């Protein structure tokens, strides 16, 4: 009996707790990310979506267990976790403004090599703007650099945090296309507020509220249900 | 029960310490002479002065979270203004003190108002800058007032008789004890007061204090001026206790760093930590040097003897070890022991 439902989970998060200052941001977050495709992490502002990604990477102190492809990563340092094959696209892009586009990409290389052909095929502008300082790029261009960085290596997982935030509609479409392409190459855990994008690319959804998981299941199930979306996310379905 | 303890313990401590000059007790190695000998009393007085001054630094650093690299400046104001008033301008004692006190309040108000416009490392650097300016000013010896590099001798005739002379060491001791006790009481009151609670809240999370609607600046300035003024008084006491006059050493950044070391060794932000740290550091600093010259140590092989001859080496190493293994300072050791015992008790109860 081989069905998608029983395919092994690539990532398993169990009982994740994070305290930031005085506040208990994540209060026992548990969810699975099945291998392949895009799993969307949804929720209102401030429920802990970004913190969840950062906790999975070890960028904030956490309690709980995170398992990647069967082995636990909770005890490892961030760079060791990342080297297991994770690409990270942070919420504010975090490209290095003082470095050129080329240097930003080169920094992401592991063991001196990278899939530059793929990256330039997806984002041809990065080749032409190679010598430009990343700080002078537009928001959309910086987003491309951030995504390209994560795709440069043969990662099995991509953690992507609100890639369409603040972008014009045309760029949103481009980013969504890039995400689809990325999902062919790796499993993607996507934090996104733009439901149109989620509708287009996501296979599974996980919804957070007040530091806990309140819903997990196939994307089609949730996204067709307007009242449910309203209740869980506080927005009318359909995207911006 | 704890409230009573907190009142009783300091009183008993002060009482016991006040009796020291009457004790003809010999503690070999720890002191060079009996407890009531002038040499030992002078040493103890110095230790008490620094216990108090360390506590003034702790008010800034341990309680308010303000890291200042220029605290020496205010101590130096106490030392130099008093010395100059007594020796160069020949003021009577109380007038000299009054002048020193006024300067010791005005200067931190002005400099504090400027320095506190920034926080964190920037604040530390600005305070360092002002203290450096003070150091340079003293070195330049304007109008031959400060004595420059050689320091300024003290005109001891300006002091009341009972502060002068070897036989009167016990009065200097009581003066120092009085100062330390005074600082302790003032800091306790300040910390326990409602502005004091605001200060500690500021140390934890300044933004939250702003959200409540309070402006941290005023509170920080109050703490800054109070700590600086108390340090200025300490400078005056130091001048009298030491009797040899003002020295530019007290204007240096190293001096401030020494205060920091004292506070950290004892335990920043704790009830008795700074007092303990200041006392212990001064004691070790003075006594280790004497120990190094003693017969027993002279016989040790060079490799051991040489580092021991410099008290700062031992103190610095002790400091590093404490920072690594006992970050709460010596004062936290008691807490740790109690914690261990409690944990052991819980385990036993299972």
């Amino acid at each position, binding site marked *: 009996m081989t069905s998608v439902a029983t395919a092994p989970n690539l990532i398993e998060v169990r009982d994740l707790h994070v305290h930031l200052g005085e506040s208990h941001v994540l209060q026992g977050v548990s969810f699975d990310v099945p291998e392949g495709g895009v799993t969307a992490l949804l929720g209102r502002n401030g429920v802990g979506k970004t913190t969840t990604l950062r906790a999975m*990477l070890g*960028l904030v102190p956490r309690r709980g267990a995170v398992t990647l492809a069967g082995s636990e990563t909770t005890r490892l*340092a*961030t*760079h060791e976790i*990342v*080297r297991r094959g994770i690409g*990270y696209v*942070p919420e504010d892009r*975090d490209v*290095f*403004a*003082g*470095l050129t586009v080329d*240097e930003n990409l*080169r*920094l*992401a290389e*592991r063991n001196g090599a990278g899939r530059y052909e793929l990256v330039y095929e997806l984002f041809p502008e990065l080749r032409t703007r190679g010598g430009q300082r990343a700080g002078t790029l537009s928001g959309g261009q910086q987003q491309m650099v951030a995504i390209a*960085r994560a795709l440069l*290596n043969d990662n099995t997982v991509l953690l992507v945090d609100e890639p369409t935030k603040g972008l014009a509609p045309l760029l949103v479409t481009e980013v969504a296309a890039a995400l689809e392409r990325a999902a062919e190459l790796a499993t993607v855990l996507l934090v996104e507020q733009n439901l149109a994008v989620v509708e287009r690319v996501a296979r599974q959804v996980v919804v957070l509220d007040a530091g806990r998981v309140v819903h997990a299941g196939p994307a089609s199930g949730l996204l067709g249900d307007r009242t449910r979306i309203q209740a869980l996310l506080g927005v009318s379905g359909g995207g911006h | 029960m704890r409230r009573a303890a907190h009142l009783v313990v300091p009183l008993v401590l002060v009482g016991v310490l006040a009796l020291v000059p009457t004790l003809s007790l010999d503690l070999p190695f720890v002191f060079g002479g009996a407890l009531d000998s002038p040499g030992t009393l002078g040493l103890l007085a110095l230790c008490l002065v620094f216990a108090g001054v360390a506590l003034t630094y702790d008010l800034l650093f341990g309680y308010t979270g303000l890291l200042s690299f220029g605290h020496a400046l205010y101590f130096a104001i106490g030392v130099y203004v008093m010395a100059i008033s007594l020796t160069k301008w020949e003021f009577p004692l109380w007038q000299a003190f009054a002048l020193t006190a006024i300067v010791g309040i005005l200067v931190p108000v002005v400099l504090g108002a*400027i320095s506190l*416009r*920034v*926080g*964190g*490392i*920037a604040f530390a*650097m*600005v305070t*360092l*800058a*002002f203290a*450096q*300016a003070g150091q*340079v*000013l003293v*070195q*330049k010896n304007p109008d031959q007032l400060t004595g420059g590099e050689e320091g300024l001798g003290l005109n001891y005739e300006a002091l009341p008789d009972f502060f002068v002379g070897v036989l009167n060491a016990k009065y200097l001791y009581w003066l120092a004890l009085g100062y330390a006790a005074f600082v302790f009481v003032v800091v306790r009151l300040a910390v326990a007061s409602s502005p004091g609670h605001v200060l500690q809240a500021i140390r934890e999370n300044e933004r939250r204090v702003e959200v409540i609607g309070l402006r941290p600046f005023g509170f920080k300035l109050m703490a800054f001026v109070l700590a600086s003024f108390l340090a200025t008084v300490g400078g005056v006491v130091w001048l009298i206790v030491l009797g040899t006059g003002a020295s530019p050493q007290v204007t240096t*950044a*190293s001096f401030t*760093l020494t205060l*920091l*070391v004292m506070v*950290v060794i004892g335990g920043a932000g704790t009830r008795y930590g700074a007092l303990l740290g200041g006392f212990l550091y001064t004691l070790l600093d003075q006594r280790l040097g004497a120990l190094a010259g003693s017969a027993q140590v002279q016989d040790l092989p060079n490799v051991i003897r*040489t*580092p021991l*001859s*410099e*008290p*700062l*080496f031992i*103190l*610095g*190493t002790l*400091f*590093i070890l404490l*920072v*690594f293994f006992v*970050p709460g300072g010596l004062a936290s050791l008691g807490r740790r022991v109690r914690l261990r015992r409690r944990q052991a008790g819980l385990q036993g109860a299972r």
Partner: protein
Amino acid sequence: MLLTITGLGLGAMYFLIASGLSLIYGLMGVLNFAHGAFLTVGAYATWWVSTHVGGGPGTQLLVGALAGIAVGAVLAALVELVLIRPLYRRPIEQVLVTVGLALVLTALVEAIWGFDARPFPVPPWLIDTTTIFGANIPNDRFLEIGVAAAVLVGLTAFLRYTRYGLIIRAGVENRAMVTALGIDVRKAFTLVFALGGMAAALAGILSGVYYGVVEPSRGTSLLIFAFIVVVIGGFGSIGGTAVAAVVVGLIQQYANYYASSGLGDLAVVLLLAIVLLLRPEGLSPKVAH
């Protein structure tokens, strides 16, 4: 002219010390108070080796300098590995440890070699003067400026063209993101400390040439000015540090000469206060700790 060159000479020494401090704070967020001690130890190592080497003062200086630089690098790297790295998530304790280390190292030097100044091997051609535009300038100034310029070029090239240089430049901007790219920044930390130690030792050696002697307090007295330079120039920026070092050196010399001795130091301190009050944000490294 003499003033300018001397000011530049002083600035050269400040730059050497400040460059290490700047990188260390910019990348690691550690305010390294022990940097002055690295300088002193490097200077003394040079002096000590030079007294055991034959030949003229030129050879003695050269051999001693090589030893001194090596000692500076090794000492700094050891310090980072043993004292700083274990305190990784405790920044306040890291700073405190450097304060303690400064005390310990300086005390050790004083204990072994005493408080008095020791004569430094200076070859005669450095003491000689060259006449430029009518001013007699001691040749050692040129050496200082030359060495500092070489280090400036070397450091900039290193940062621009090597992988570790890239990591350091990125790390100064955003350390967390660098680790999120799978890079172990800790190696960069040790490297930066070692580089800083080397530069500090160089500054110590040059100060030995400049003053003709070495003494235990040298490191501490120069460290303060180095801090001022770093703050004015901006943490983590080599170019900014260089400019600030030149400015500070020149102001100090000119004010000391034209106004009165000691006023130059005052002027520099005032400059620091002004810069800080106008631009306090320039102080926090853009590092996400």
